[in-house]
């Protein structure tokens, strides 16, 4: 069952009445109802699409033991109402699938101790709050390596969403990958201050291309920047969240393809079997939480190099956050021989030395 926020709101009054009468018993008798709150439309081809596919996969695996209620395009200010409504209508496990929802989830979780909350890309757990994410930065490292091979202008363009640690460490990692091939590589960054706004994403990509960037990385969810690269010709790009090859058959290099389904199924099963625990899951390429789409528009040598790097990351032989790590201002974060902890990666709020872009 997929609901729009509005239709859910429309039914709110009636449903509130029902749950007031029957209480939590609604949820306990029948199958487990799992709630999903999505930041974008299911049809964004990116982040939200992949969570929707994860939900479908969960339903497929667990069959009639679970049902799902999904609300798409929920703006952060509407989050509390939507979440409360899901609780009232009987969801006992709720996935809040955006970093923008993390703070509100943290606030609302203690108010509903009988509901298990799971926040994608969150940064802290609670008694009934788990967090989960994929180590997308591993894919970013591969992107950097490929970009350095493909770029003639030696400049990468980065269509960024918001200056949050997830995006900042991705930018740093792209450059780390690029510098491993060519230390002369540079990057330009444009913040569009949106996760999904096709028109603005395209405008940003256009500006970057006009300024000489010939490989575009995007940290936004629509295929617009990639599609623009296709139109321009001689510009390459990477897909975000889902395999976007079809949007740019001649410009697409690879995509990070998210796969939440197995995790969702596993967590819902844990609730059903009564052994759900608040966990902090951060799965890399090796875990299957995401994979890289087949390499396209690359020479066999380039593709095999990318595949080699990918496999080294998956096996743990290569780690993008090994020291030395030096901040833009010259301050050393960790010396050679050390590695950033997960918490340090998740809190990253600085660019590396060598990136000549100011933090907004």
């Amino acid at each position, binding site marked *: 069952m997929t609901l729009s926020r509005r239709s859910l709101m429309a039914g709110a009054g009636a449903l509130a009445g029902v749950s007031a009468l029957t209480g939590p018993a609604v949820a306990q008798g029948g199958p487990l109802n799992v709630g999903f709150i999505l930041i974008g439309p299911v*049809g964004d081809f990116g982040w939200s699409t992949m969570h929707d596919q994860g939900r479908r996969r969960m339903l497929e695996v667990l069959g009639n033991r679970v049902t799902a209620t999904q609300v798409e395009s929920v703006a952060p200010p509407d989050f509390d109402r939507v979440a409360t409504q899901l609780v009232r209508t009987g969801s006992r496990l709720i996935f809040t699938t955006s970093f923008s929802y993390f703070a509100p989830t943290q606030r609302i979780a203690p108010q509903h101790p009988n509901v298990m909350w799971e926040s994608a890309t969150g940064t802290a757990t609670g008694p009934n709050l788990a967090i989960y994410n994929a180590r997308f930065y591993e894919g970013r490292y591969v992107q950097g390596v490929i970009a350095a091979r493909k770029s003639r202008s030696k400049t990468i*363009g980065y269509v960024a969403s918001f200056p949050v640690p997830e995006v900042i460490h991705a930018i740093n990692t792209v450059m780390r990958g690029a510098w491993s091939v060519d230390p002369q590589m540079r990057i330009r960054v444009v913040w569009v201050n949106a996760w999904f706004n096709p*028109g603005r994403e395209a*405008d940003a990509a256009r500006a970057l291309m006009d300024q000489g960037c010939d490989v575009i990385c995007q940290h936004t969810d629509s295929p617009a920047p990639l*599609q623009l690269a296709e139109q321009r010709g001689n510009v390459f790009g990477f897909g975000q969240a889902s395999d976007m090859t*079809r949007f740019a058959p001649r410009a697409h290099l690879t995509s990070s393809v998210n796969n939440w389904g197995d995790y969702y199924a596993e967590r819902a099963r844990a609730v059903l079997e009564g052994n759900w625990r608040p966990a902090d899951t951060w799965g890399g390429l090796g875990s299957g939480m995401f994979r890289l789409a087949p390499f396209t528009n690359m020479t066999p040598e380039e593709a095999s190099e990318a595949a080699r790097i990918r496999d080294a990351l998956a096996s743990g032989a290569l780690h993008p956050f090994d020291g030395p790590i030096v901040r833009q201002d010259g301050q050393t974060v960790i010396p050679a021989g050390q590695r950033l902890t997960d918490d340090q990666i998740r809190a990253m709020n600085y660019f590396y030395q060598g990136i000549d872009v*100011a933090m907004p």
Partner: protein
Amino acid sequence: MTLLEAILLTVITASTPLLIAAIGELVVERAGVLNLGVEGMMIMGAAAGIAAAITTGNSAFGVLAAVLAGMALAAVFAFLTLGLATNQVAAGLALSIFGLGLSGVVGAPFVGVQRAGIGRIEIPLLSEIPFLGPVFFAQDPFVYASFALVVGVSWFLWRSKAGLVLRACGENHASAHALGYPVLRIRFLAILFGGACAGLAGAYLSLVYTPFWTSGMTGGRGWIALAIVVFASWLPWRAAIGAYLFGGITILQLHAQGAGVPVPSQLLSALPYLITILVLVLIMRLRRGGAAGPAALGTPFVPDR
């Protein structure tokens, strides 16, 4: 192509949907009707446009369908506000919400379908003028349509009798009625024109700008078009300035970011809106108060016999 030319080209493409929709709304408001449903009509145009273009395989049919979809939604608005004399603000807001929802339904089967956008048409001779040529005369057909709309609407409103009558309906509908002009019919036609323009602007988004369908793809451009009409103090050529200013700042702030100008990106993103407010304040100061808009704007008209 130089960077400046590239920037100007981008500014024009970013401004065109705003301009087309604003010109349509300007005519509607000049007739005394406030239609806040531009966003809804625009996104219906985008959905219907790409749906028809994919189904028939012909972009021209897509454009036609977009215009008709915008007009159909406008007709609903006209029925409510002219036929039933309901509150225009409420009806317009409802139209926006309705359009956003309905477009999702119409567009659903076309999610993820990929097609080539409408290309550019270079006008012979004119496109060879250095600098101005590639910027103004090597554009897609919608850009030319927007130029034509500004000139055409400007001429219509101030140089034709029909335009004078339309403006009279917007200034004082009772007088226009007393003089024997069919106020409601004129307003109906103006609303349809506004819907057609909004639909066309939507088609630009889904057929040229980002040629695919996603729900909510207008991203608030309909509301910006409404702001531009006020910004322009209901004059077509000023609407063109407003649209280009708005599009220009949007694009320039992206370029400034890319070039590493050390200004917070959040502030840069807010700049177009701040400037709109600033200009509005300036206009009202220079006018020393007093309404700039058509006097009967937003007031329903019920013929007394």
